[in-house]
C-alpha cells in the first residue's frame, strides 16, 4: 500500500518535472527565434527601403540593393518547383503504390532515398559542379543551380509525399477497387486528392529549404556582383549568397544591408509556409 502511494506521489512530481522540461525546450526555440528576429529587424530597419528591392550591388552600401539576387532566388524557386514536385510525387507514388516491398532492390532504393535526405548540401554542390555544370556543359547558370537544388530537395519531397500517401486509409483504395476501378483510377481519383494537403505541405517545406541554401551555390560559382536581371541560362547570384558576401564586408553599412536582406528572405520563407498552411487547411479531409 505505502509503496503504491509513494509511487503515485513520485509520478505526480515526475509529471510536473517533465512538463517543465518540455516548456523549457519550447522556450529555447522561441527565445532563439525571437532574438534573431529582433536583432535582424533592428539592424536592418534603416535599410528596409525601396532601394533594397530595386537597386543592384554597389561598393557604396547606401545605394546597394539586392534586386538581381531576389529575382534569381525566385527563378530558382520556380525551377525547383517545376522539377522537384512532379518528379518527387511520381517517385513516391511508385514506391508507395506500385513497388513490391518484399523485393530486396526496392528496400535498397528506399534506404538510399532516406540516406540522401541526410547528405550535406555541399556534396550536392560538388556533384552538380562535376555532372551538371561541367558534364552537361550547362555552365554556371540559374538552370544548373535549380537542378542542383532540385536534387537536394527531392529526397525530402519524396519522403513527405510517401507519408501523405500512407496516411490515406486503405479503405479508400479498397472501396475504389470494389467498384471496379483500375489501380490508375484509384490513385488518380481517390488517393492523390486525399493526399494533397500533406503533399503540398511537404513540397513547400522542401522549397523553403532550397531557398535558404548557400553552400552548393557558392560551390558551383554563384556570383556576388551581378548588376543585371538574371535569365534562366545566364550568370546569377542568390539571396543567401549575397547576404553572405555582404556580412563579410568591412563597412558597417553592409551589415545593415545584409540584415535587411535577411528580413526579405524571412518574409519570402514565411509567405511560403503560410501558403502551405493555407493549402493544408483548405483541402484537409477527415476520415
Amino acid at each position: 500500500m505505502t509503496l503504491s502511494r509513494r509511487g503515485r506521489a513520485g509520478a505526480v512530481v515526475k509529471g510536473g518535472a517533465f512538463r517543465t522540461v518540455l516548456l523549457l525546450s519550447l522556450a529555447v526555440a522561441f527565445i532563439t527565434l525571437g532574438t534573431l528576429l529582433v536583432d535582424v529587424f533592428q539592424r536592418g530597419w534603416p535599410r528596409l527601403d525601396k532601394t533594397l528591392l530595386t537597386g543592384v550591388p554597389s561598393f557604396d552600401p547606401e545605394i546597394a540593393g539586392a534586386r538581381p539576387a531576389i529575382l534569381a532566388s525566385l527563378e530558382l524557386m520556380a525551377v525547383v518547383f517545376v522539377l522537384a514536385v512532379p518528379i518527387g510525387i511520381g517517385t513516391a507514388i511508385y514506391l508507395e503504390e506500385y513497388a513490391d516491398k518484399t523485393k530486396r532492390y526496392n528496400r535498397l532504393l528506399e534506404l538510399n532515398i532516406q540516406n540522401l535526405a541526410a547528405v550535406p548540401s555541399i556534396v550536392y554542390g560538388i556533384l552538380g559542379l562535376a555532372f551538371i555544370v561541367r558534364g552537361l556543359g550547362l555552365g554556371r547558370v540559374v538552370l544548373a543551380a535549380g537542378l542542383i537544388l532540385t536534387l537536394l530537395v527531392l529526397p525530402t519531397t519524396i519522403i513527405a509525399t510517401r507519408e501523405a500517401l500512407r496516411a490515406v486509409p486503405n479503405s479508400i483504395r479498397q472501396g475504389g477497387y470494389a467498384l471496379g476501378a483500375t489501380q490508375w483510377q484509384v490513385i488518380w481519383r481517390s488517393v492523390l486528392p486525399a493526399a494533397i494537403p500533406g503533399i503540398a505541405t511537404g513540397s513547400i517545406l522542401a522549397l523553403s529549404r532550397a531557398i535558404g541554401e548557400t553552400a552548393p551555390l557558392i560551390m558551383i560559382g554563384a556570383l556576388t556582383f551581378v548588376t543585371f536581371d538574371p535569365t534562366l541560362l545566364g550568370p546569377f547570384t542568390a539571396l543567401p549568397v549575397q547576404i553572405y558576401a555582404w556580412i563579410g564586408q568591412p563597412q558597417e553599412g553592409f551589415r545593415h544591408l545584409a540584415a535587411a536582406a535577411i528580413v526579405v528572405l524571412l518574409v519570402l520563407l514565411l509567405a511560403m509556409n503560410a501558403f502551405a498552411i493555407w493549402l493544408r487547411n483548405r483541402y484537409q479531409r477527415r476520415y
Partner: protein
Amino acid sequence: MSKLRLLPLAVVALSLSACGGDGDSSGSGGASGTIVADGSSTVGPFTSAAAERFQNENPDVKVTVGISGTGGGFERFCRGETDLSDASRPIKDEEKKLCEENDIQYTEFLVANDALTVVVNPDNDWTKCLTVGQLRKIWEPGSKVDNWREVDPKFPDQRLTLFGPGTDSGTFDYFTAEIVGEEGKSRSDYQASENDNVLVQGVAGDNGALGYFGFSYLEENQDKLRAVAVDGGNGCVMPSVKSAQSGEYKPLSRPLFVYAKKSSFERREVEKFIEYLIDNERAIAKSARYIPLTDAQVDEARRELRDALDEVKGEGS
C-alpha cells in the same frame, strides 16, 4: 490535382537543359559583352567596385564577379572558364602547370596593396610592438603559449586568446608563410572564422585577445581595435597606407593581384576594362577601402598591359 498537369512542363525544361550547352558567355568584339571574374574574396570587392564604375561608363558591358577563393578562382581560370582571376597571393606552381596544360596564357597585374594587421583589444596597454619571432612563438604549430607573460616576461599575467582566419583563406596562407615560415602551418587551437567581422567582434570583446586580418577591417573598426607594430628585423613599424606602399611594413605587407587571360585581350571590352582599372586604380581603391598603388606600381601595371596587348595584337595580325 492541377499540379500534376505540370509534368509535361518539367519534361520541356529538362530537354531545354540538354541543349543549353552554349550558355557560357564568350562574347565577341566591340565594347559590349560579358567579362567573367572570379577568385579571392579579399580582392573581389575591388574588382566589383571597378566593374561598377566601368559599367556606368560602358552600359553595354556586363561584368560579373564571384568569390570562389584564390585557389578556386585559379582552378576555373586555368580551365579557361573565366577572363579574370582575383588573387591575394601569386599563382602557385601547380596552378601554373594546370594553366599550361590547358594552354591558358595570362598576365599578372598588381592592383592594390594590403597590410595584414595584427590587432589587440584597446584595453591592452602593454603590447605596442611584437617581433616576428614572438609572433612565430605564438602561432607555430604545437605552440602552448596561452599567457601574455610567456610572449614577453615584461607583459602582465593575462590570458592570451587568439583569433585568425580559417585555413581556406589566402590571408591565412600569407600569414603562416611569412610568420611561421611554412605556408599553411599554424597552431589550430584558435578561434577561426572565414568572416573577418567575426574576428573583429572577438578581439573587441576580450581583453587578452590577439588576432590578424586585412587592413581595411582595422580602418573600419578603429574604436574597437588597436593595431600592433611589427618588427621584421628593422625596428617596429605600424601598419599604414604609407608603410604598406613602401614595403617598409615587413613582412606582412602583401600585393593583391588580378590575373588576366591573354586571349581575352582580343575582346575589346576586356582590354578596355583592364585599361580602366589601371587608370582609375586610386579612385577604385579608395571607394572599396584598399591601399592604392604607388606611381611606380601604376606605371609598371601600364607597361604589363602594353606588352600583353602588343603580344596579342602581334599574333593576331
